[in-house]
């Protein structure tokens, strides 16, 4: 098979100014508030004026009844390129790749990619009960466990089929908590021990408390522009080396054990001209640890089914031999709705611009960001990944 990608690269396009609007467990604000805050921060941190932002890309679950178009009036922007990406955990990667093409082709010069959600006391339940028509018809009436139940099935099946122990997943969760202790925005501030992980209260067996993300409110964002523009603004930039997205992959698999990454990873690495061995840190979508492992396998760090061995042989803290979810991941930071799909992207941008403070991965040149989203019925439909390089 020809390993070269038939696709053009993203030469001359960069991502800059990773911004996080501080997370809170609950907020009385709306998604509009969080998205306004992140846009204001992007403008402040980049030093460009609002009128120069001619592209806008939005992801949010709680923006309803509005979408990106309504938001333009709220924010007083007049973009000539607008996108709304309802892909949950894959939003960050997909926003980047679409914005990069828009900039590369001249349809926009500066694209603000923003993602955020609020979390009222009852908004998570409301999101769940109307998440999708398949979920409303064929999942929510079954115990209304939400994604906990769906991931319990995927986790139980993975453990049975590939011989994993809860302690394997626990190792990932514990390492991420260590990372989170060095990330000021993380909502979880206490260390987590393996025994505490194992003994936590059951949520949906085999999942226990620390296997499940905590919904919260917050926002993330970054700008996409030409490398020249970034240079003239004096902004630390990150190169886009390669990207993929795939939706509803492997529909005939009885239960999900792989995602679209397995289909497209060769193309991803070919486009980037780098391989798994070149990756210095990985940011995966981690609403539950089983999906982290699925991404590690499907993106070529080990064979399918060898995840347990891979976990046992590696260390996942920021200073480990496989730096993974170095800001703590959603499991230790919190899941701010669609902003959860940006968390890894933002952290990768920080790592590659030496902005990761005391969790900085030494000599990080290449980062892999992976996204996964939308448990529509029995499996996650959206997957994507991006390879980023120090500019």
């Amino acid at each position, binding site marked *: 098979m020809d390993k070269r990608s038939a696709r053009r690269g993203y030469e001359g396009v960069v991502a800059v100014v990773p911004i996080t609007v501080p997370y809170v467990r609950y907020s009385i604000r709306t998604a509009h508030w969080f998205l306004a805050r992140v846009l204001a921060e992007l403008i402040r941190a980049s030093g460009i004026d609002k009128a120069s932002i001619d592209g806008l890309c939005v992801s949010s679950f709680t923006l309803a009844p509005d979408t990106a178009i309504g938001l333009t009036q709220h924010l007083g922007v007049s973009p000539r390129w607008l996108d709304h990406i309802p892909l949950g955990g894959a939003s960050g990667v997909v926003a980047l790749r679409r914005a990069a093409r828009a900039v590369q082709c001249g349809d926009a010069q500066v694209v603000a990619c923003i993602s955020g959600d609020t979390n009222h006391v009852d908004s*998570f*339940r409301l999101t*769940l*009960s*109307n998440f999708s*028509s*398949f979920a*409303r*018809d*064929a*999942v*929510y*009436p*079954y*115990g*209304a*466990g*939400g994604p*906990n*139940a769906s991931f*319990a*099935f*995927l986790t*139980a*099946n993975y453990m*049975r089929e590939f011989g994993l122990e809860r302690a394997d997943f626990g190792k990932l969760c514990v390492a991420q908590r260590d990372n989170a202790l060095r990330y000021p925005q993380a909502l979880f501030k206490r260390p987590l021990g393996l025994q505490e992980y194992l003994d936590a*209260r*059951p*949520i*949906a*067996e*085999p*999942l226990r408390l620390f296997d499940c993300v905590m919904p919260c409110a917050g926002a993330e964002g970054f700008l996409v522009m030409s490398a020249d523009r970034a240079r003239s603004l004096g902004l630390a930039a990150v190169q886009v080396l390669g990207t993929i997205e795939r939706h509803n992959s492997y*529909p*005939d698999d*009885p*239960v999900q054990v792989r995602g679209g990454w397995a289909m497209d990873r060769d193309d991803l690495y070919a486009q980037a001209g780098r391989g798994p061995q070149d990756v210095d840190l990985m940011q995966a979508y981690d609403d539950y640890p089983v999906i982290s492992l699925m991404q590690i396998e499907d993106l070529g760090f080990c064979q399918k089914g060898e995840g347990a061995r891979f976990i046992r042989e590696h260390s996942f803290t920021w200073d480990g031999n496989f730096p993974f979810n170095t800001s703590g991941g959603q499991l230790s930071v919190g899941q701010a709705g669609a902003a959860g799909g940006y968390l890894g992207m933002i952290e990768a941008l920080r790592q590659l611009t030496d902005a990761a403070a005391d969790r900085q991965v030494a000599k990080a040149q290449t980062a892999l960001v992976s996204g996964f989203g939308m448990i529509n*019925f*029995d499996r996650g439909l959206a997957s994507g990944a991006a390879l980023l390089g120090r500019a």
Partner: protein
Amino acid sequence: MTSPLTRPRRKNPVLRTRLPNLPPGGRSRVALGLTAAAALGRFELQCCRDCGKVQYPPSEACQVCLSERLQWREQSGAGELLAVTELAHSNDLFFRERLPWRLGMVRLDCAVTVVAHLHGDCAAAGARVRVEAVLDRSGQGVLIAMPDKETAHMADDPQLREFTCDPKYRKVLVTDGRTAVGQAIVHSLIRAGADLIWVGQSEPWKQFPGIEALRTLPQVSLVPLDLSDSEAVSELCAEIGGRVDIVINNAELHRPFGIAARAGIEAARAEMDINYFGLLRLAQGLGPALRARGADGQSSAVAWVNLLSIYALSNYPPHGTFSASKAAALSLAQCLRAEMRPAGVRVINVFPGPIDDEWNQTVLPPKVSAAALATAITRALQQGIEDVFPGDVAQEWLARWRDNPKALERELAG
């Protein structure tokens, strides 16, 4: 293995009765195909008429060939349990009150993956199971994975009992004990483990065949009940209303003939007075009490059964006024179903073909025997079926009605 139910202790009347909650009832219209089949006790999935693909969840187009020609077809439900979970947390009140709650992911042999409630006797992942469609307390069709083979006390599984209306250890009112059907229902309920059965008799001073046999049954309590007497109905409801778990309204008045063969409206009025207004009186008297007890522990108020007739679907002119009274009762029963739904109390409508009694003497067989009708009612309660069509005639008329109601009207006109 399921542990058998035990007879509930006498309820402490001072304690607060838990109020009913419903499981999530929102569905897209296309998904109601599952509900329509489950109401009849069938498990059906969408099947593409063009490429044969079976699909789930229900959708508006075939996921393989995009055909819109989708047909609901009965499924065996056989499959393999892929994964099991036990919820210790739920976002919904109904389930929150019933935790832990077991769920399974099942790969059906027709190459479809489903999420299903899980009977407690289903073994670990990898086991063979049988998926059935049942109605939940919100009245919507849901899937439950059952053990491949019958197990002991299977019906007593607490999760399964949330879907069924099993008479075991429940208290039942049967509104008319005089008829062979009424007596057969009582005997069938006793075999099913009913705890107490109030049996109505409209004229308590009169003897009737079978009354002595009823009197000797320890579970039976004969009560005066004339559905045409508003005051008598209210009186009885006030007395037993707080304890009735299941109502079986089998009282009916049946006189042959249509319009021209009889002068005056007295017979028709009498039919309406029992078959329609009788139901209305009883529903006004007992409905509120049942609604209040929809979640009252192991033996909550759970079902209301109406003995209608297949003639309710389309008028059978030789029994024209009776048909009309049953059609009126059917319409009212739909109203009752809507009003009982917030409490999770199921309204079961029974549409027998001609019953083998004196009023159908001149109707040709096959006719439904009292025992067969009683068995069908008990089974509907045990399985949680909502619409029951006992007997070959009822089944055939139903098929003809579903196929083409206008054709059936012409055919019945003779």
